């Protein structure tokens, strides 16, 4: 049917074109060979391609090298302790012979701090991203974005310093109040006469401030990708602004929120200096219940930072701990970027 239609069109065209020439011939069909279009790079181009490709690949290699060299240099400690023992032992004692080192106690603290941080930062980030994308005028949006970026620019060291000497004192009453009133929840339990400074809770709050900008920026990007048509449809149906956000923006940005939170988790896991200042860096003992409100706890990165310049065996153990941290953060970040890029909202978003 389609063919006949085009035939008809062609006849009509031929008829128009050849109006004053009654002996019309159908136009001759030209056999056209397909032209091959290919880029022929010049020498300069080829060198340029090689150079940039080399740079790209070297970035890739660098990351593999980091993992490889950490593995090689930590082999002393790993072979002496055994990889499985190293991963599952909670104590870290180099004063006894043979030394008993393990990373699990450190990992527990790391994960706890990161979870507390992300738990505080995610709701705040989502609200902040909503304020930026949905609730502000262009001028205020610029201000808010500036403040969040500024928060990201402040070095971790200064956060640690501020948290250690200023914020800690302000949080202790809250910890006390939580433990007195909600002590029956195992999470908020504290021991008798335990110090409340230098706790995982305080470290988590400070780290939350540090991961807030990264989560906010991912979530903000995702929210701003919401199709305006869907938003307008929700409003046109008589929805309030919050109704629109709840039914359009939040479901659309779901993947981005999850991915952004994981990215924040990755950052929180690797946070070093602030945690090194805030926590006493004593490995968490498993088997006992976890007290996040009282003094104690250690993270892998903070522990490593506090032991810089130790003897050869300890250093080897620290490198092994660094390797574990490297693998965990890498995995978290990769999963996060996959989650964001696979979700409907995050397709065009950089994280």
């Amino acid at each position, binding site marked *: 049917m389609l063919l006949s239609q085009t035939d008809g069109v062609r006849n009509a065209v031929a008829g128009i074109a050849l109006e004053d020439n009654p002996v019309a011939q159908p136009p001759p069909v030209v056999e056209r060979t397909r032209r091959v279009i290919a880029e022929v790079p010049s020498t300069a181009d080829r060198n340029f391609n090689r150079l940039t490709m080399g740079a790209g690949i070297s970035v890739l290699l660098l990351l593999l090298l980091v993992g490889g060299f950490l593995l090689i240099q930590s082999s002393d400690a790993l072979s002496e302790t055994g990889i499985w023992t190293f991963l599952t032992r909670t104590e870290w004692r180099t004063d006894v012979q043979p030394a008993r080192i393990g990373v699990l106690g450190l990992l527990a603290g790391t994960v706890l701090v990161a979870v507390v941080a992300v738990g505080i930062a995610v709701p705040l980030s989502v*609200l902040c991203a909503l304020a930026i994308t949905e609730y502000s005028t262009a001028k205020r949006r610029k201000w808010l974005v500036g403040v969040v970026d500024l928060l990201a620019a402040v070095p971790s060291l200064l956060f640690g310093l501020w948290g250690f000497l200023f914020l800690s004192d302000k949080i202790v*009453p809250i910890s006390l109040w939580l433990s007195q009133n909600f002590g029956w929840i195992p999470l908020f339990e504290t021991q008798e006469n335990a110090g409340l400074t230098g706790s995982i809770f305080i470290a988590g709050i400070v780290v939350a401030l540090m991961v807030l900008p990264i989560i906010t920026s991912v979530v903000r990007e995702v929210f701003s990708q919401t199709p305006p048509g869907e938003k307008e449809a929700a409003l046109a149906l008589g929805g309030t602004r919050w109704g629109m956000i709840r039914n359009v923006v939040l479901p659309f940005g779901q993947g981005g929120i999850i991915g952004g939170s994981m990215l924040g988790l990755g950052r929180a896991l690797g946070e070093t200096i602030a945690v090194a200042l805030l926590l006493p860096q004593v490995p968490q003992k498993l088997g006992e219940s976890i007290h996040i409100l009282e003094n104690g706890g250690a993270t892998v990165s903070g522990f490593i930072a506090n032991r810089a310049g130790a003897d050869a065996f300890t250093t080897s153990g620290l490198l092994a701990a660094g390797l574990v941290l490297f693998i965990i953060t890498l995995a978290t970040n990769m999963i996060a970027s996959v989650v964001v890029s696979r979700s409907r909202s995050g397709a065009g978003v950089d994280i």
Partner: protein
Amino acid sequence: MTIETAVDVTERPRGATRVSSRQPGSTPRPRSPRRPREFTNFDVWILLGSLASSICLNWLIFYRFTVGASQFGFVLGSYIVFLIIFAAVTTERVGRLVAVDRLMTVIVVSAAAVVFIPLVLLIGYILIKGLKALRPSFLFNDQQGITPVLPSTSGGGAHAIIGTIEQVGLALLWSLPLALAAAVFLNESSSKWRRPVRIFVDAMSGLPSIVAGLFIFAVLILPFAKSGNPLFGYNGFMASLALAITMLPTITRTVDVVLRLVPDGLREASLALGASRARTVWSIVFPTARTGMTTAVVLGIARAVGETAPLLFTAFGYDLMNSNPFSGSQESLPLFVYRNIRKPDINAIERGFAGALVLLLLVLGLFVFARFIGRDRSRRKIKSSRTTRTSDSAIPAMPALEGKPS
């Protein structure tokens, strides 16, 4: 299709009744549209009233009936009670649906305001603490002959400032060419390796900075520990390598984003004129993206300046001036702060705060500088293009625009 609906509407019986209601004799009820986003003076009074009553209530609870409450708890409690009162009053006035909307508006706005508070507190705290010990001499002296009994204003951080400048400068030297080339690779090439490289650059930007320091330590310092070669010991050069690793993904990703903003038309025009790809990047893409790239570099520097963790295993820290980055351990501003505030000595802590203030000012300065470079110049551009257009066009009818200074 639009016509069909229109016909449909007029034929509906409801339409007929509406028409009939407009007949003379029957007085139509004035329609008042419901505007859920309307914010009247009355709403302001409700907000203030709820706030005042919640503060009073909490003051009563926290300071009269119970003791030992913290200011923080008071603020938090007041906020929660404020939300409850506000929700109750608004529900009473405008109904549940609109009340929820208003409540969420209040929560979102206050969450955005909460982000300001830690920033202001942090900057204010370091400013106040740092100004106490910061003297001009801080910029010219090192820690030679400093003992715990000396006041915090003696000595200085010149060695740390020199160290920071050298280390960050060298780090920029190593990372900038690689980062630019990698960003060009991600944007301008059509290699199948682009995707894995992008994923790895993303992953690298989440690399804990201490791991970068550990890596340099494991590769270049530990294996050569017995050789006694000062180049492969703790020194500023090693620190610069570790910093380069932390800067690399930051600069690559930001430059990548900036290069993506360069219009494809410019590239195609250049290629169509016969320029090679290398020439196109060098003469068209880079100049177009210059301001954005400068911003990227400044942001990379700002990040590297504040990094402490990678330096612990590389520069190690030193109390005296060591201006040679290739030999001997070296101080830098973050290390100076970190080492001093951990000393059990009040004067050392104050000295640490002076260093922290210098560091903060440096980072804030770089941040503002980056913003200044990368600011939106579209408005000025529109103006200037308008003047050129009028001056270029041969119509002399609009001289008013021409004379306007752009």
